[in-house]
C-alpha cells in the first residue's frame, strides 16, 4: 500500500476517528445503553425521563468535577460524600434557625473549603497518602454531621430553599444551570490558568516540579479546597431535592464520583484525563441506574450488574490502551 511509504504525519487522518478512538469507555457504554434502552423501554427516550436523569446526575457531576482535579494530581478524596451531608445539614440548620440564606450558603461553602484545606495540607505539606487522609476526614465529617442532627434528618425548610432543585430559569432547571456553570468555571481553571497547568504537572511530573524548586503546595492544597467548595454547592441541590438534609445522604457518593471520573478516562496515574470525560462518565452511571430501573431488573441483580459494568468499561479502556 502506498501509505506505508509516506511519513505518518502526512497521512490524512480523520478527526472524528481520532475522537472515537480516544473516547473513554464511558462514551461507548453510554451509546450502547442509549440504543438498548430506547429500543427496549418505552419510557427512556422521553423528555420527562431524560430531564429526570440529568437532574439525578447533577449532584454527582458537580462532585465528580472536583474529584477529577484531585485524581489528576494522583490523589483521591474519600471525604466528599460525608462532606456533602455535613454541608447540607449545616446550611439547613442555619436556615431553620433564622439566619439569612446567604449566611447559610456561605457557611456551607466555608465548611467545604475548610475540610478541603485540612485534606490538602496534610497531603501536600505533611506528605501523607491521600487515601488515608481523606478516609480520616471522612470519619470526622460523618461524625460531626450525625451529632449535629442526632442521626435524624433536618426538615421543615422554608419553601424558597427548594429553588435550588426545582427552580427553572429560561426553561432549564437550576441544577442543570449549576452543573453547566461549574463545568465552565472548572474548564477555565483547568485549561486556561496557571493553576490548571500545575494541576496536570503535580499529577504527571511532581518530582520535576520539586527539583525545579517550585512551591507546589499551595496549588496542591487549592485542588482539595476546590473539591470541597464544589461539594458544598452540590449539597444545596441535594437538600432541595429531598426537602430535607440528612447526615448520611452522601454515603457512597464519593465512590460513584470516582467511578464517574475513571470511566470518563481520567486515570489514577500519570495525570491523564480531563473533565469532559467526567461528564460522560457521570451520565453513564446515571443512565445505567435509570436504565436498570426502567427495565425492571431486580434490585439484587442490579447490584451485581453495576459491578460488572464498571469493571468491563475500565477493563476495555486498559486493553485498548495496549494497542494504541
Amino acid at each position: 500500500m502506498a501509505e506505508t511509504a509516506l511519513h505518518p504525519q502526512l497521512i490524512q487522518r480523520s478527526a472524528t476517528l481520532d475522537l472515537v478512538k480516544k473516547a473513554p469507555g464511558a462514551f461507548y457504554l453510554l451509546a450502547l445503553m442509549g440504543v438498548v434502552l430506547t429500543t427496549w423501554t418505552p419510557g427512556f427516550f422521553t423528555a420527562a425521563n431524560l430531564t429526570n436523569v440529568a437532574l439525578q446526575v447533577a449532584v454527582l457531576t458537580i462532585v465528580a468535577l472536583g474529584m477529577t482535579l484531585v485524581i489528576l494530581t494522583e490523589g483521591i478524596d474519600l471525604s466528599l460524600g460525608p462532606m456533602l451531608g455535613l454541608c447540607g445539614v449545616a446550611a439547613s440548620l442555619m436556615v431553620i434557625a433564622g439566619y439569612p440564606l446567604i449566611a447559610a450558603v456561605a457557611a456551607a461553602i466555608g465548611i467545604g473549603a475548610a475540610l478541603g484545606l485540612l485534606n490538602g495540607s496534610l497531603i501536600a505539606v505533611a506528605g501523607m497518602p491521600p487515601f488515608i487522609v481523606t478516609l480520616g476526614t471522612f470519619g470526622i465529617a460523618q461524625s460531626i454531621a450525625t451529632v449535629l442532627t442526632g442521626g435524624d434528618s433536618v426538615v421543615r425548610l422554608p419553601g424558597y430553599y427548594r429553588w435550588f432543585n426545582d427552580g427553572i430559569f429560561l426553561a432549564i432547571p437550576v441544577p442543570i444551570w449549576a452543573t453547566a456553570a461549574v463545568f465552565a468555571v472548572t474548564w477555565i481553571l483547568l485549561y486556561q490558568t496557571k493553576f490548571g497547568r500545575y494541576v496536570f504537572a503535580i499529577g504527571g511530573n511532581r518530582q520535576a516540579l520539586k527539583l525545579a524548586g517550585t512551591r507546589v503546595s499551595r496549588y496542591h492544597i487549592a485542588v482539595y479546597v476546590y473539591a470541597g467548595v464544589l461539594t458544598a454547592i452540590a449539597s444545596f441541590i441535594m437538600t432541595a431535592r429531598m426537602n430535607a438534609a440528612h447526615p448520611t445522604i452522601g454515603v457512597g457518593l464519593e465512590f460513584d464520583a470516582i467511578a464517574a471520573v475513571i470511566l470518563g478516562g481520567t486515570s489514577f496515574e500519570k495525570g491523564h484525563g480531563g473533565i469532559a470525560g467526567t461528564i460522560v462518565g457521570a451520565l453513564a452511571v446515571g443512565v445505567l441506574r435509570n436504565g436498570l430501573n426502567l427495565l425492571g431488573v431486580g434490585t439484587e441483580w442490579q447490584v451485581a450488574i453495576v459491578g460488572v459494568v464498571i469493571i468491563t468499561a475500565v477493563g476495555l479502556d486498559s486493553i485498548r490502551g495496549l494497542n494504541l
Partner: protein
Amino acid sequence: MDRRTFLKVSLAASTSATALGTASQQAFAQAGKPVTVAFFVKNVTNPFWKGCRIGAEKAAKELGVNLEVVAPTKPDNIEEQTRLVEDWIVKKPDAFVFVPVDYKALVPSIQKANKAGIPVVNYNNRMTDVDVVSYIGSDDEKIEYEVATYLFKSMGGKGKIVHIDGVPAASTAQARKKGLERALKEYPGIELLTSQPGQYRRLPAVQVFENLMQRYPEIDAVVSANDDMAVGIAEALAAAGRGGKTKVTGVDGIPDATAAIAAGKMFATADFSGHDQAYLAVHAAVRYLRKQPVPKEIELPIVIIDKQNVATFAKTPEERTVPSWDKTAAAQKG
C-alpha cells in the same frame, strides 16, 4: 469494509433499530395489559421486608394483579429511593404501595407521584404532606409502650434497664422510643441506664451491647427496638452467663425471636407483621383501583408474644395465614 463505512453502517442500523423499537413499544402499550402495582420496600437485606414481600405477593396472586418489588441497591439509601420513585413514575404503574426510607426526605418525590396521578398506598412508616389513598401500619409508639409496660409490670415496677435503639432517623425507631419514654414516666421505679443505637442489625447491636455489659454489671432488662437485635443480645447474655438474670424484649415477631421466647432466652416481643401490613396494603391499592371502599387508615391490633402464646406465632411468613380484609376494615374507626 473500512472503518468509516463501518461507523456509518452501525449508525444507520442503530437508528432504525431505535425507530422500530419505539414503534413496537407504543403498539404494545395500546393492547390490554394487566394491572401493575409497584411495591416498595426499604432494602433487600432485612428479613422483615421479605415478610412484607410474601404478604404482598399473596395478595397480588389472590387479586390477579402484577406485583413489581422495588428496593434500593444500597440498603435504606434515601437518594436511591428518590431516584427509584422518579424512574417508576415514568413507567406509570397503576399504583404505588410505598414505605419511605426516610418519611420526610421522600415527600417531594411522592408529591411528584401525586401530580402524575398515580395512587399511593402508604404502609409501615407514616408519611405526612402527601396524598395517600390509605395508611396501613401499626402504631409503633403504642407497641413499644405496651411491650415496655408488660415488662415493667413483670419486674414489679423496679429495676435497671438498657435501651438498644434502631436506626435513629427511622420513624419506627423514633416512635418506639417515645413509647418507651411514656412507659418510663409511668414507672418511676425503673431506671434507664443508657440508650444506644444498634442500627436494627444484629452484629452492630451485639458489639455495642457486649461493651455495655462490661459497663453495667447489673442489668435487669434490655428493651430492644427490634427482634433481630434482641435475639443477638439474648445470645450475648447467655454466652456471658447472664442469661437468667436479664430479661430481653424486642418488636416484630420474627421466627428466631419466637424460638428464643419458647426456649426461655427472650422474655417477650410484639407482633409487628410486615406480612399482614403488606397484604392489606396491596388489597387497599387494588380495591381503590376497582372503585371499592377503602378505609383511610388501617391500624393493626397490637399483640404481645410471650411464652404463653408463642406457639401460635411461630410461623414463617409463607405459612402465616393472611388477615381477612373485611374483618380488618370493619374493625377500623372509618
